[in-house]
């Protein structure tokens, strides 16, 4: 599974530009799905199983986009100014390296800032080694993501886009490990989550599920000063979301996930996230409303080029989802 994770996290795919990562995912799914389609906003939807009498139409959503940058102007000296795609923290930009969709590489520079002051995005620029506007290979609207190789620290894994390629890896692994299911499961690899859950919004309308789960990363409260107001910790198991600022998980689904984890002896933790949102909201609010929940992977340093997760949490999330999908889901 680690080689799959490496491949997924190193492929660029900022929101709206998921075509390369979509191809990687299509290949990884191979023939483990009964049917694959791509919707109008570019989400890849892999269908598996037919609905038995005790089954439901289930949507599992893992977003395949990542945060990135888009060029807004090439100045006379060949420096590129940019805007953010999704939640970019200027603090983690300076000195970073970027990879454009066409393979062009560059670094992020900064000037005009007093020492110790926090830069704004407009203080930063991309330098691709051009000497003038004329020999700069970039043009306005070109898109790049951060470039950083996958780091395997054994139990802990680090990458630029664990958010949310780790969930894509989990979804693919679930497809591979799922032997039989009473449900018609739609694995949605959604686009444009980082700019407002857009892909999952249209995918959920198209799938029209009876029940849905987002799989995403969440903050962890286990760094030295424990300043993040979160109980979640790396290695304590997949986190079953109770709420975040975008939605309140259906309490019946939360109970069902907890019971399933307990019954199967899978470690789990409960998650209350005060700021942030996931595809779960998009599923919940589609059409006449859908019971929705979320399985999260605790992650340190989210939206930095070095996001860290625990491999056991990933493994246990796969087990939990396989278990949930292998049996009828009861909501009472």
């Amino acid at each position, binding site marked *: 599974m680690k080689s799959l994770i490496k491949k997924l996290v190193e492929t660029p795919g900022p929101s709206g530009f998921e075509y390369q990562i979509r191809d990687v995912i299509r290949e990884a799914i191979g023939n483990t799905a009964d049917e694959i389609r*791509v919707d109008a*906003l*570019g989400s890849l939807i892999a269908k598996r199983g037919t609905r038995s009498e005790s089954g439901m139409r289930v949507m599992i959503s893992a977003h395949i986009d990542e945060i990135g940058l888009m060029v*807004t102007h090439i100045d006379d000296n060949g420096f590129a100014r940019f805007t953010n795609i999704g939640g970019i923290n200027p603090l983690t930009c300076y000195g970073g390296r970027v990879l454009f969709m066409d393979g062009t590489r560059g670094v992020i520079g900064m000037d005009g800032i007093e020492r110790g002051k926090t830069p704004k995005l407009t203080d930063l620029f991309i330098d691709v080694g051009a000497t003038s506007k004329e020999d700069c290979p970039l043009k306005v*609207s070109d898109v790049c993501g951060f470039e950083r190789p996958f780091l395997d620290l054994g139990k802990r894994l680090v990458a630029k886009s664990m958010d949310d390629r780790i969930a894509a890896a989990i979804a693919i692994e679930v497809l591979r490990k799922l032997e039989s299911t009473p449900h018609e499961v739609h694995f949605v690899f959604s686009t444009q989550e980082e700019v407002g859950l857009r892909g999952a919004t249209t*995918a959920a309308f198209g799938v029209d599920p009876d029940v849905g789960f987002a799989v995403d990363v969440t903050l962890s409260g286990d760094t030295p000063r424990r300043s993040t107001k979160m109980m979640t910790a790396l290695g304590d198991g997949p986190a079953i979301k109770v709420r975040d600022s975008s939605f309140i998980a259906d309490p019946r689904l939360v109970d069902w996930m907890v019971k399933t984890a307990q019954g199967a002896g899978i470690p789990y933790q409960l998650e209350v996230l005060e700021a942030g949102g996931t595809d779960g909201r998009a599923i919940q609010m589609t059409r006449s409303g859908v019971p929705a929940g979320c399985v999260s992977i605790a992650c340190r340093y989210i939206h930095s080029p070095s996001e860290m997760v625990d491999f056991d949490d990933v493994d246990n999330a796969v087990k939990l989802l396989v278990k949930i999908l292998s049996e009828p889901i009861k909501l009472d």
Partner: protein
Amino acid sequence: MSKNREVSTNHVPEIDTQPIQLLEKLCNASAVSGDEHEVRQIVLEEVSPLGDEVKVDALGNVLVKRLGQRKNRVRVMLAAHMDEIGLMIVKKHDNSLFEFDLVGGIDERQLPGKSVLVGRDHLPGVIGAKPIHMTTTKERKNKIPVSSMRIDLGPEIGDRVKPGDRATFATRFEILGPSICAKALDNRFGVAILIELLRHPPDTIDLLLAFTVQEEVGLRGARVAAYTFDPDMAVAVDSTPAYDLPHWDEEDENVQYNTRLDGGPAIYTMDRATIADRRLVYWLAETAQDEGIPWQLRQPGGGGTDAGAIHKVRSGIPSISVSVPSRYAHTAAGIARLDDWANTQRLLQAALARLTPDLLSGEQRG
């Protein structure tokens, strides 16, 4: 900046008298979000003889269908919002001074001293300001909050005004050489362009026109219009700021101009509400290239258009925006070029005429 194309002096703008008169009528009409009645009446008058089907929906959008002739026609939605930013009367004080609220994005610093027209009868009033004789140096450094401003209508006229009435800037449409000066160019440009498209409809597609309401307060009309049409793709036609002014007080290059006057139609790649479908970006850019129409990319960044609501409707609708650049958007008076307007019209006309289902047949590849 400093790289603006020169306006050629011997150039005759390719806009007939009729569309100019229509744009004048549209700009001078009052249609603050939620009370688009006046512009809607003008639109209905123009489109009723031309559309195969014309209706006004529950929110007040005007929806027009004009079906093409060819087989396998793409169903294309074009959206232009009828509403404009403005003011709403909230409370009456003694002597017919009215407290008001802002509707849509307005920088309140530019309000004092402006003439306004209140309500459907266009009652003239003014947003009063303390004369310089009476202000202190300190006062002049501070911005005046909206809560301290009043619209002064005088006693008799004031009797005809009630809470909820809208007010717009009193600016009247004028042609200034190659330019237009008017209020509400955002987005009467779009409205005029859609009407003109309906006068010369391409037979190759189904033209689904949405003259939308309440864009300036959150893209509300476009959302329900898209739900009704359920189109194959959509283009929002709007007007976007040009901040192509020299940085006279800095050595720096102007790197945040959004768009430039005389640059032609501004094609969107990304704003805060939409990431444009790249297939549609290339479709418009290649059309412009092939037809020799000047065009520019709007700088990716903030803002939003009706496309932001449309593309997320139902199972998703590939969408893009194209705008006529205009200086001083959301103020009392904008400046735009007749040529940029004409070229936006030409671009859409040409792009729609060459549109086939092939455009959407493959996956978006970036």
